[in-house]
């Protein structure tokens, strides 16, 4: 293994600049002449815009322009990226998503006007001076009520507020129903997957620029995928040709999904920059982030598990209402369907699976993919109902899972939910878990907790996810309107150092460290000589960005392919330099040599030669040493894992303390174990946050009650136990060149059911018959459940 190559736990090089305050985020950019945008946002959830009188605002000090929805009535709509068809074959309802609300406001925070002024304060002052009349309408908040009420409509021409009614796999519907009907045991569970606010540390920020000389636009913005944002703006919203629009996502302080999407503020600052001929900047306040960043999750689900009395699974049937909020955010229709329904077979050899998802419009912020995106919802439903089933049948929770696991010799395995899993070994993961979590010692720890008056419980979970999103041909069949390949250019500079331009975007994932490890490993050079360039559409090839644990599996594979091409070319140059045939040249440890001779040339000499081609046979070898690869995978990747956690519950107050959390994951090959451990730990923290703390609450009028950190609890260090992460159990991905699977979302997928299973276990061991508590398991919820048990 090359020191610093694949498998080395290199510290993240980018952390030096981040930890020393030298990162350069969007808001750190202030081009000369910048003016500032502020948005007028609805304080009611639903209303009809009667009039907006901007005269007074336009006369305020420093005000340069006022925009309203009318200014954008004729431009395009920010689209949903996936077309979903309902069970009856009709396409989903796709409302226009305008740059600024026009006609109606549809959620608290919906922007209906914007003011541009010399300073941010002046812009905010002028927003307050707008004279606005909005006629209040009843808010649609509760999903069941939204579906039942034909009159109260988020979108006027959609009675019943249903975006689609999707069945997966529709042909399995009757067989699954029959299997459940005939089954000796059926466990049913109703549960809520709680809505989450993403809460990246860096709020969204966008700067629009326009060059009147060239007609070029530039958007610097908090984006996880600049090319996707450019595509959406160019092809759908503003129609600016791609070759006239540069989108830059500089250092980005966390995304978790919320910065995948194109938001109206980006189109606004570009339009304003053109009108004013000046750079226009907008930086969200934390309050705006709470109200307008796309939220996550928000499913209300009923799941049934049918099995033999020995616990052999026969069928899983899921009925879910998925909240999409007031408008369709870009991935909102894919998340509850193809990122959720296709995973509903879990790690199990269950023969019948059917999933029905009704997506519902409400007068709330749009909901979209958030770390895990659909797969946490699937895992939570499934692993909670399995736990309940095991309890009902008196079977050990590990035993019931092992009994139904897909076995290593069954791959490739066609799951009953329509995916083909390429590799895995779930019993091996469970073995690792049992050892690392010292499950044999649990009873002793429980007795010790009991002496202190605490109820201790053990939660077990196993998950599978589909990531490395994704094969374009497969997602195309599933309704995606875009391709999901990625791209990399490896440019060897004349003195031998290397620039790698990648389509993936790093905002916490450590690409600047991990990607060089791949190239260094393949070329046998020092990783310190390799730099990653990302986030700027004028510099990088057209990749699709970072989400869905895809960066390494998809973009890393593109890096691998491009590096292979570089080696092919370099070998030709080396052969020319040594006057031999390329077939006779060996390449190892950064050196080209001819076996059986003393001929060799070093990597640096070949690089230099590529740019000083005085004697090249130009019809055979072009100058330069730079190659691009676009990589489109053949399948998703399928990371899997087994998790355990122990909790202590204070029966007097209902407080839950997570005292241990162990994650055993199979990510395939690991490029940088340190980064992988950090990714999993971050995911675990988010999952524990979802399970215990994070509570997004809209009241009946559609007001967001948990709209600040005073009321929305994020997990903090002292809420967390030591997070034990083990990724030693490896089955390689069979279809990408690195054999990698992706690790970014696993922790957030695997941990919520683990925690909830542990709490229910603790209560049961304490003699309290509580079947389920909805997340977050706040003290009041646990205490109330105890009173009712």
């Amino acid at each position, binding site marked *: 293994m090359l020191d610093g190559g694949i498998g080395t736990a290199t510290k993240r090089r980018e952390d030096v600049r981040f930890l020393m305050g030298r990162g350069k985020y969007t808001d750190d950019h202030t081009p000369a002449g910048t003016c500032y945008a502020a948005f007028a946002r609805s304080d009611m959830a639903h209303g009809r815009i009667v009039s907006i009188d901007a005269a007074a605002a336009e006369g305020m000090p420093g005000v340069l322009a006022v925009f309203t929805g009318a200014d954008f009535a004729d431009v395009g709509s920010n689209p949903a990226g996936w077309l979903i068809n309902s069970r009856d074959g009709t396409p989903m309802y796709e409302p226009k998503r305008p740059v600024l609300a026009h006609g109606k406001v549809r959620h608290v925070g919906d922007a209906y006007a914007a003011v541009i002024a010399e300073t941010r304060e002046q812009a*905010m002052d002028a927003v307050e001076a707008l004279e606005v009349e909005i006629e209040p309408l009843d808010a649609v908040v509760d999903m069941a009520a939204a579906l039942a009420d034909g009159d109260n409509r988020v979108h006027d021409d959609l009675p019943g507020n249903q975006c689609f009614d999707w069945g997966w796999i529709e042909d399995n519907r009757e067989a699954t129903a029959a299997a459940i009907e005939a089954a000796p045991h059926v466990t049913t569970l109703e549960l809520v997957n709680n809505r989450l606010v993403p809460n990246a540390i860096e709020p969204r920020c966008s700067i629009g620029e326009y060059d009147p000389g060239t007609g070029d636009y530039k958007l610097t913005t908090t984006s996880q995928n600049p090319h996707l944002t450019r595509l959406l703006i160019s092809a759908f919203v503003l129609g600016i040709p791609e070759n006239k629009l540069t989108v830059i996502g500089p250092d980005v302080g966390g995304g978790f999904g919320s910065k995948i999407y194109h938001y109206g503020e980006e189109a606004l600052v570009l339009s304003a920059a053109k009108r004013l001929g000046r750079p226009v900047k907008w930086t969200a306040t934390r309050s705006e982030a709470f109200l307008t960043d796309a939220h996550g999750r928000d499913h209300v689900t009923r799941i049934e598990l049918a099995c033999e009395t020995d616990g052999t699974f026969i069928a899983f049937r899921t009925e879910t209402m998925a909240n999409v909020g007031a408008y369709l955010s870009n991935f909102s229709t894919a998340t509850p369907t193809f990122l959720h329904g296709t995973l509903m077979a879990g790690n199990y050899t269950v023969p019948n699976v059917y999933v029905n998802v009704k997506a519902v419009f409400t007068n709330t912020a749009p909901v979209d993919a958030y770390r895990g995106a659909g797969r946490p919802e699937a895992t939570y439903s499934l692993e909670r109902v399995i736990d309940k089933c095991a309890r009902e049948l008196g079977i050990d929770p590990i035993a019931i899972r092992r009994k139904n696991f897909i076995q290593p010799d069954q791959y490739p395995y066609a799951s009953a939910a329509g995916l083909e899993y390429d590799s895995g070994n779930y019993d091996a993961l469970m073995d690792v878990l049992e050892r690392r979590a010292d499950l044999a010692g649990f009873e002793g720890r429980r007795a010790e907790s009991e002496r202190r008056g605490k109820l201790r419980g053990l939660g077990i979970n196993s998950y599978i996810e589909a990531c490395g999103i994704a094969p374009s041909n497969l997602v195309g069949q599933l309704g995606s309107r875009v391709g999901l390949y990625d791209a990399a250019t490896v440019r060897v500079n004349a003195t031998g150092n290397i620039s790698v331009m990648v389509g993936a975007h790093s905002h916490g994932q450590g690409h600047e460290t991990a990607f060089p490890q791949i190239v260094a490993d393949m070329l046998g050079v020092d990783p310190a000589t390799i730099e990653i360039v990302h986030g700027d559409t004028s510099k990088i090839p057209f990749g699709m960005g970072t989400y869905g644990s895809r960066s390494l599996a998809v973009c890393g594979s593109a890096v691998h392919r491009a590096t292979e091409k570089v080696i092919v070319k370099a070998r030709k140059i080396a052969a020319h330099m040594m006057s031999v045939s390329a077939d006779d040249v060996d390449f190892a440890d950064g050196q080209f040599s001819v076996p059986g001779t003393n001929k060799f040339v070093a990597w640096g000499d070949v690089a230099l030669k590529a740019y000083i081609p005085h004697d090249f046979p130009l019809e055979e070898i072009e100058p330069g040493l730079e190659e691009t690869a676009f990589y489109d995978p053949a399948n998703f990747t399928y990371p899997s894992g087994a998790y355990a956690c122990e909790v202590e519950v204070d029966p007097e107050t209902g407080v839950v303390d997570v005292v241990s959390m162990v994650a055993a994951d199979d990510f395939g090959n690991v490029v940088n174990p340190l980064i992988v451990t950090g990714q999993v730990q971050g995911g675990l923290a988010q999952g524990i946050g979802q399970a215990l703390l994070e509570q997004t609450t809209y009241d009946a009028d559609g007001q967001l009650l948990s709209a600040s950190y005073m*009321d929305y609890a994020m997990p903090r260090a002292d809420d967390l136990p030591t997070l034990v992460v083990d990724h030693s159990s490896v089955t390689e991905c069979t279809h990408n060149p690195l054999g990698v699977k992706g690790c970014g979302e696993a922790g957030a997928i695997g941990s919520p059911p683990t925690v909830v299973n542990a709490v229910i276990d603790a209560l049961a061991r304490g003699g309290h018959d509580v079947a389920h508590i909805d997340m977050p398991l706040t*003290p009041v919820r646990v205490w109330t459940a105890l009173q009712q048990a």
Partner: protein
Amino acid sequence: MYDFDFANPATLDEAVAALGRGDAQALAGGQTYLPALRQRLAAPDTIVSLKRVEGLSDIEATVDTLRIGAMATHARIARETADRFPALSRLAGNIGDMAVRSRGTLGGSLANNDPSACYPAMALATGATIHTNARDIAAEDFFRGMFETALDDGEIITAVTVPVAQAAHYEKFVQRASRFALVGVFAARYPDGARVAVTGASSGGVFRWTEAEERLSDRFEASALDGLTIAPDDMIEDLHATKPYRAHLVSVMTRRAVEHA
């Protein structure tokens, strides 16, 4: 934030005068007031900083009291009362985070009288006296319900005199987001009896739980509280707790406060 003028007086008299002009507001640590300004929830003409005013942050001990300047920060109180009054020291040391404790002040907290704040329970349970530029106010008379106090417009808290208890403890059940008190109970034993004050729980703001005080005055032990509950009717109900849960927590936290005193 809206624009405002900034006054930075060096003496109490200058501060009082500045607060008397127009729509002026005092600024202590700014941990409550600055977020309100930033969210444009307040629009004073003038902000009068108390930071430079002489003599407002001293902590003085007598035989049985502590006199704490209004501008003493939580961090300083935590540090300097640890020997004399550990219950107070621990209370101060558990407010917010280090940044909040380094700026937030006792006077600011009492003047604000947030229904979930910690010091009001301490002030009421110790029978503290709040000194202002104009008068002395007994804690009993000072708190007037959520965010309401006996302070007149422009009146400045200068110091607080706290009788040191023979035994005391503040038990705080944190609201998981803000980490203010969802329910906090300060229980204190004095030669003439026990006092118990509860913050975070009641829609009327901080209050004394007299039934608990009666029982604890006889016998300052947790078991003296056996069977004692409080009615949920006047409790706060919000995102974080129901009325019955808050009422239940009042008993549990009171018992734990006595156990740890």
